[in-house]
């Protein structure tokens, strides 16, 4: 544990820490472009130069290990001149096309220019080297070679993380360019990360280009719902529209990466949403007030219960639901309705592609949570069997899909059930077959926890309030239960989680505070 001094501040850091990281730990920002905590050291941008006592030359702080008694300065005139000098050199050929560049607002060149530059250009416009702009290089990415500062992060990412090596440097000197090999576009499922790690506007994401200026965006710490991996994300939004997911650092789960499939998950919160409660009588849907929808649902459930017994009602939970929601759904099914027909299935329809990195075959964010809460797959199979045999009179179903039951079979399957209430976010076969549609909040509109495939319990936070008249699932559950005499008095997801952690062994001792923004492993998980 060496102790060193930086700008007069004495600090202790762990053995082998580079100056740049050590400085960051004590709140001193050293400007840099090529350094990335999850990639190898390139040391070529030369922005992170610092003065180290006993070294005649300035040293790159990204590749200089802190040693005992080292004295570092980042605030001297010599360092400032070096940094502004490097920045000026980086900008001489830059097209300065910020007004039409998507990176504007989150651009390393802009930010450091405002902080360290503010110089007038000493370089004649006509001497600028021009390179190719707007090149579709495959995957999610468009390359603008003129904006590139040749930091090599993209090249290293493709060598070290995806190991697919699609990009390289071509040419030399100030004609150097990054590109793909002729006729060999990006061919991996992690290309979106290139736009994230590119510190400038050279690599931009096709899906986000020209959609929104980043300074209009706000961000919520969330979890990707695209599969069981539970990648930590920033969900970027404006108003009640999501614009993109960006990976949020989580060394235990996704480092600083996110797959291209997950990146498109945000669209589900924007498109084709259920926004108004609907009751369907005689095949004719009618928009109704929440009170009417909840009253009817509770009444129908209780009616079936009283007339045909608990065997005639069923609850199908969803692995897209949070731990808190699954916990209340289970209590509704087992304590209020006392039905054996309760379960969930993580079998998902469609693409079940997986790899050995982030992408999991289970496309649900919370199958593991459901299992840990005693919501079983057998319960689901049993329930579907009971439905197909015509034994179910009233059904409460959560989520947008019925496990791997094909869309066109859902309608016929449910035709024998006299009352189907659907709690979901998006239009689909379930909402079309339901007698009551109870529109619920998307992952962007509510908070809670998911348990990823490895048992890591992680919080996701709401970006904005529920759209339209949609309601938080927890509220829907509590209102239904209370209309059947439960007397639940929960106040938000945190209070549900407190009850859950108090009674469910795998979650024992956890609280939202202890989960923090990186989550915690459930009992018995690594």
């Amino acid at each position, binding site marked *: 544990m060496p102790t060193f001094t930086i700008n007069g501040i004495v600090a202790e850091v762990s053995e082998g820490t580079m100056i740049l990281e050590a400085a960051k730990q004590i709140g001193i920002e050293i400007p840099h472009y090529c350094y990335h905590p999850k990639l190898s*050291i*390139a*040391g*070529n*941008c*030369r*922005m992170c*130069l610092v003065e180290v006592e006993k070294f005649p*030359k*300035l040293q*790159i702080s990204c*590749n200089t290990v802190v040693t005992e008694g080292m004295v570092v300065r980042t605030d001297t005139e010599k360092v400032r*001149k*070096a940094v502004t*000098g*490097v920045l*000026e*050199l*980086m900008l*001489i*050929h830059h097209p300065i096309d910020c007004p039409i560049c998507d990176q504007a607002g989150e651009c390393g060149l802009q930010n450091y220019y405002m902080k360290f530059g503010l110089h007038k250009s*000493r*370089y004649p416009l006509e*001497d600028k*080297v021009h390179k190719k702009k707007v090149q579709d290089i495959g995957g999610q990415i468009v390359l603008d070679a003129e904006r590139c*500062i*040749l930091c*090599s992060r993209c090249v290293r990412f493709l060598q070290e993380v995806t190991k697919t090596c699609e990009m*390289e*440097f071509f*040419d*030399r*000197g*100030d*004609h*150097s360019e990054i590109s793909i090999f002729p006729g060999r576009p990006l061919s991996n499922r992690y290309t979106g990360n290139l736009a994230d790690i590119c510190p400038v506007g050279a690599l931009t994401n096709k899906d986000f280009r020209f959609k929104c200026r980043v300074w209009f965006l706000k961000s919520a710490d969330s979890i990707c719902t695209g599969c069981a991996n539970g990648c930590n994300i920033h969900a970027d939004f404006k108003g009640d529209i999501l614009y993109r997911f960006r990976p949020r650092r989580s060394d235990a789960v996704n480092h600083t990466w996110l797959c291209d499939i997950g990146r498109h998950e945000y669209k589900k919160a924007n498109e084709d949403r259920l926004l108004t409660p609907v009751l369907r009588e005689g095949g004719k849907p009618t928009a109704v007030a929440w009170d009417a929808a909840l009253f009817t649902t509770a009444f129908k459930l209780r009616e079936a219960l009283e007339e045909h017994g608990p065997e005639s009602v069923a609850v199908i939970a969803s692995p897209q639901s949070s731990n808190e929601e699954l916990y209340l759904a289970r209590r509704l099914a087992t304590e209020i309705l006392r039905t054996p027909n309760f379960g969930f299935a993580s079998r998902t329809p469609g693409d079940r592609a997986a790899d050995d990195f982030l992408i999991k075959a289970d496309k649900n964010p919370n199958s593991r949570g459901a299992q840990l809460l005693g919501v079983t797959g057998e319960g689901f199979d049993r329930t579907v069997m009971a439905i197909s045999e015509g034994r179910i009179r009233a059904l409460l179903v959560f989520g947008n899909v019925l496990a791997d039951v094909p869309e066109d079979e859902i309608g016929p399957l449910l035709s024998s059930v006299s009352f189907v209430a659907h709690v979901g976010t998006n239009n689909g076969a379930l909402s079309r077959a339901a007698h009551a549609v109870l529109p619920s909040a998307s992952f962007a509109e509510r908070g809670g926890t998911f348990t990823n495939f490895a048992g890591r319990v992680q919080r996701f936070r709401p970006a904005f309030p529920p759209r339209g008249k949609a309601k938080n699932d927890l509220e829907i559950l509590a209102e239904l239960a209370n209309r059947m005499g439960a007397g639940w008095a929960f106040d938000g997801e945190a209070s549900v989680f407190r009850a859950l952690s108090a009674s469910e062994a795998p979650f024992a001792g956890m609280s939202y505070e202890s989960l923090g923004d990186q989550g915690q492993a459930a009992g018995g998980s690594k």
Partner: protein
Amino acid sequence: METVLTTHFDNGQYRRVDRYVELGGYAALRQALAGPKERIVDEVKKANLRGRGGAGFPAGVKWGFLPKDLSRPRILVINADEGEPGTFKDRQIMSKGPHLLIEGIVISSFALTIHTCYIYIRGEFVREAKILEEAVSEAYAGGFLGKNILGSGFDLDVTVHRGAGAYICGEETSTINSLEGKRGWPRVKPPFPASVGAFGLPTIVNNVETIADVPWIVTHGGEKFASLGVEKNGGTRLVGISGPVNRPGIYELSAAVSLREVIYTHAGGLKDGKALKAVIPGGSSTPVLRPDEIDVTFDIESMMKIGTMAGTAGIIVIPEGSCMVRALLVLMNFYAHESCGQCTPCREGTGWLARIMRRIEEGNGRHGDIELILDVCDNMMGRTICALADAAVMPAQSFIWKFREEFDRHIHEKKCPFGNRF
């Protein structure tokens, strides 16, 4: 004067193994293989052998950087990527006495327990590579390379690897990357090649001339070698001289010689009795000297004292009547073309310097351009992974410091006062 390398260079057959052996070649190897390895290293240290690639780092000290344990195989890389403008000495060794290099390689490898050696030869040296490859084949056939060399039980394989024509590949970590089949970019240090070099293995990179000196050191002893030179600069150097002199070429000289002697005694002075205007002493990267600065001995320390470097000992003579602005433009174009593009200051700075130089030489220079050059130089010097940026900056600064009036005249008169002559 006693010579180490060039003694038989006039003999056209010296490059054949038979004639080389007849003239005493490979005796040093036999002697080395019979004795302890440590003795060889000791003699090289005693010889004050300084690296001949330009930096002048003591060869024995460099060898000492290899890790002590032998758990990982070690690699010897011979840097034959001689590309520094004004330098053409290694080419002489490889074409006229390739077995000197091979014998040096075997002795050095034996001393350092190395069994694999690559000779990284500049791509443009087509003829030299062919001669070298023939010599390597001869050495294999003669039992000087391969398994069980001369019955000693020592094995060594040598591979001649041709570069693809990049100046930067003469920088030792760039050489290693290129050798591995990668883009010729210098590596960030640490780690240094002695611990993580070619193919991740401990590696020593030595210049051709450095290694070619080793057989003589083994035969005659380190002290004798050291005595041929001056303090801290053991042995002789192959001094190259080019430009309009009467006898341009390679001369094997002690570092005790002065620049004036090289130019006026050995090279016979300038052609047509022209006056001397400037001298670049050790390859194009070394700071230029004025005619009043050449009465100084040509050893590493003396050169440093007057603010320049002995470098590769490739002297470029510039006569009166030449345009220093144009001369610097030529150099700046070279560095802009050869910058590998890795580090920002060098990638962008070399091109910027070249463009400013071009407009000055073409009569479009602006007031403040000279200060601009010096400031850009300041932002490049010592700011990069390798020394290419420094190599571009040193001539730029020194040309301006020492011939400022020529630059001012170009800008003031809006034309080249020398008629663009160089």
